[in-house]
């Protein structure tokens, strides 16, 4: 029987956690990765002791080692059928304060670690012979400008570009690759920037989103669809999930 093991990064909170939670409910096995554990992750370990594995890992520490790390995980846990790159950080920083270090901090986690893991997971010895699915969590910021998000938006646009090339390169092996572009979703990452995303900002966003601000569940729903058999004819596509935000004001 084909394995249903999915690697999910950024597992400790937000979209990554929600995806892992929903996949486990659907009967998948999940290898979750994040720098630190969380109460939510501990609960998953308690509730799904057979199907949920957690690895604490700083994905930016040794990016070139990540493909081998995936292979080692596969030898222990079996072949993978999918990968969701949800790990990401955001900076809100005016352009005039930008620096190479700030750029690298964002790109190392948001882009480079994801590409290294994608390399590992698509190794013929690691991915199911029948194929699989990769979903990268991009952002509405990859297409719509927002002040202070130059590095973040560039990193998410980079993911979209990489996604299309991977989709083309891997299609012959029935490995599908897509990206999901969430709009403003209430996650712990947003709460971390509460000085920026204050009540006034939230009210403004709410007025720009015909269906209101989203929740991690809204994003997880499409990610789970893209990982499953029902999306078997979909690859190389970007999916806007944003409550209608791209309809304009």
């Amino acid at each position: 029987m084909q394995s249903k093991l999915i690697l999910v990064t950024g597992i400790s909170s937000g979209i990554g956690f929600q995806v892992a939670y929903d996949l486990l409910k659907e009967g998948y096995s999940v290898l979750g990765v994040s720098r630190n554990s969380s109460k939510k992750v501990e609960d998953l370990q308690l509730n799904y002791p057979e199907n949920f594995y957690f690895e604490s890992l700083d994905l930016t520490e040794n990016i070139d080692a990540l493909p081998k790390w995936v292979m080692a995980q596969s030898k222990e846990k079996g072949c993978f059928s999918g990968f969701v790159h949800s790990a990401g950080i955001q900076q809100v920083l005016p352009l005039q304060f930008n620096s190479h270090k700030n750029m690298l901090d964002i790109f190392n986690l948001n882009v480079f670690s994801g590409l290294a893991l994608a390399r590992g997971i698509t190794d013929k010895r690691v991915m199911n012979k029948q194929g699989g699915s990769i979903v990268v969590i991009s952002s509405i910021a990859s297409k719509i400008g927002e002040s202070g998000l130059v590095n973040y938006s560039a990193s998410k646009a980079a993911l979209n570009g990489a996604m299309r090339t991977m989709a083309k390169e891997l299609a012959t092996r029935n490995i599908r690759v897509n990206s999901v572009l969430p709009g403003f979703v209430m996650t712990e990452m947003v709460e971390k920037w509460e000085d920026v995303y204050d009540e006034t900002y939230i009210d403004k966003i709410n007025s720009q989103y015909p269906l209101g601000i989203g929740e991690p569940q809204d994003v997880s729903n499409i990610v789970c669809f893209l990982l499953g058999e029902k999306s078997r004819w979909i690859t190389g596509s970007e999916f806007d999930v944003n409550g209608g935000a791209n309809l304009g004001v």
Partner: protein
Amino acid sequence: MTRQEFLNELSDIMQLDEVLIGDEVLEDFSEWDSMANLGVLSMFDMEFSVHLTTDDLKNIKTVAGLMTLAGDNISI
């Protein structure tokens, strides 16, 4: 690079379960595809500063033949 290191690296590029021993015919492997070709070109470029082309690879039939292309860069 030693002969064994070369074989290990080539096995990785072709993503083989078993490590090559050296006398294999490349075309016997379904894994010897265009991406593996590109991988070998990159390996020669990065490891040996030898710039090969896909045409160079077309004339190579065996793993041992690939090692010949590396010349003195591979030690016993």
